[in-house]
């Protein structure tokens, strides 16, 4: 059964990965090349050609989609499905939103996406350690939020549960506030940097949205294919109302 879930997640991941690969090729790469025209040649330059970077980067985009699909909407969905809030059709979106917050949203509070050429005050390994720590905190925040929602919904109703779920997320900015300051400066105009950031956020949000949509569709398809499903009941209902209308 786990294998079926992972296979479904991987299928959604392939579709989302191809979409994100296309985004890297058609949107991000031209934008990065443009941003790089503001850089004043620093040092030796890249050790691989532009073509290699472009090709490997697109492949990386596809692989990222497959990785997210297999891990988040495959394995994690299998284990967490019973406790994810929402109806069958919305669970994929809830988990994808949690994936976005865990992988990108939480770390970005500390280190927002940067266009190329930006010099950052903190060393790379310090940033990577904090990036990983913020991913853990993001995941924890999502877990707490889901738990709070499920618990409060049965005891105090949906609005309170919603507030409780939001409150649980306070953990994430709270930890980020304790993170180190990372001054960033670069040759790129502020407007371009803002545009770059917006497009990067949209790219990741889009990747998770496609992932969730394809996953929800596959889930619906697979459940309707299995016999003894409520599909039959729906047909029976339509028939009954049809008879009434005919009368």
């Amino acid at each position: 059964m786990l294998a079926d879930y992972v296979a479904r997640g991987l299928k959604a991941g392939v579709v989302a990965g191809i979409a994100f690969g296309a985004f890297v090729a058609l949107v991000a790469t031209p934008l990065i090349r443009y941003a790089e025209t503001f850089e004043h040649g620093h040092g030796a330059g890249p050790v691989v050609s532009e073509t290699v970077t472009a090709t490997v980067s697109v492949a990386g985009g596809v692989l990222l989609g497959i990785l997210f699909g297999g891990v988040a909407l495959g394995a994690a969905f299998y284990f967490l499905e019973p406790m994810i809030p929402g109806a069958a059709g919305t669970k994929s979106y809830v988990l994808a939103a949690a994936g976005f917050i865990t992988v990108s949203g939480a770390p970005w509070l500390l280190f927002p996406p940067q266009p190329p050429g930006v010099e950052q005050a903190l060393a790379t390994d310090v940033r990577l350690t904090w990036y990983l720590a913020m991913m853990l905190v993001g995941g924890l925040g999502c877990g707490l939020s889901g738990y709070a929602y499920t618990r409060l919904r049965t005891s105090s109703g949906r609005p309170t549960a919603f507030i409780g779920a939001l409150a649980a997320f306070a953990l994430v900015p709270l930890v980020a506030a304790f993170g180190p300051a990372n001054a960033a400066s670069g040759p790129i105009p502020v407007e371009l940097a803002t545009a770059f950031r917006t497009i990067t956020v949209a790219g990741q949000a889009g990747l998770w949205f496609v992932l969730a949509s394809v996953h929800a569709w596959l889930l619906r398809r697979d459940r309707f294919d299995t016999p003894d499903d409520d599909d039959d009941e729906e047909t029976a209902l339509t028939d009954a109302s049809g008879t009434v209308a005919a009368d």
Partner: protein
Amino acid sequence: MAISNNSVHGRIEQARMELSATQVAAGLALVAALGFALLFLQEPMVHDSMHNFRHAAGVTCH
């Protein structure tokens, strides 16, 4: 089967029956290796090849 399939605990128990420790270890190792190579590996050739992808994905890379 005694275990309910509709709880997180039940799902974990079922996965324990379906998978061997080797399969779990191999799966986790594959995921960790791919994730690390895509997002964090700083080896110059990998770093430069992944440059556009990491900027596009918003990963802090250099």
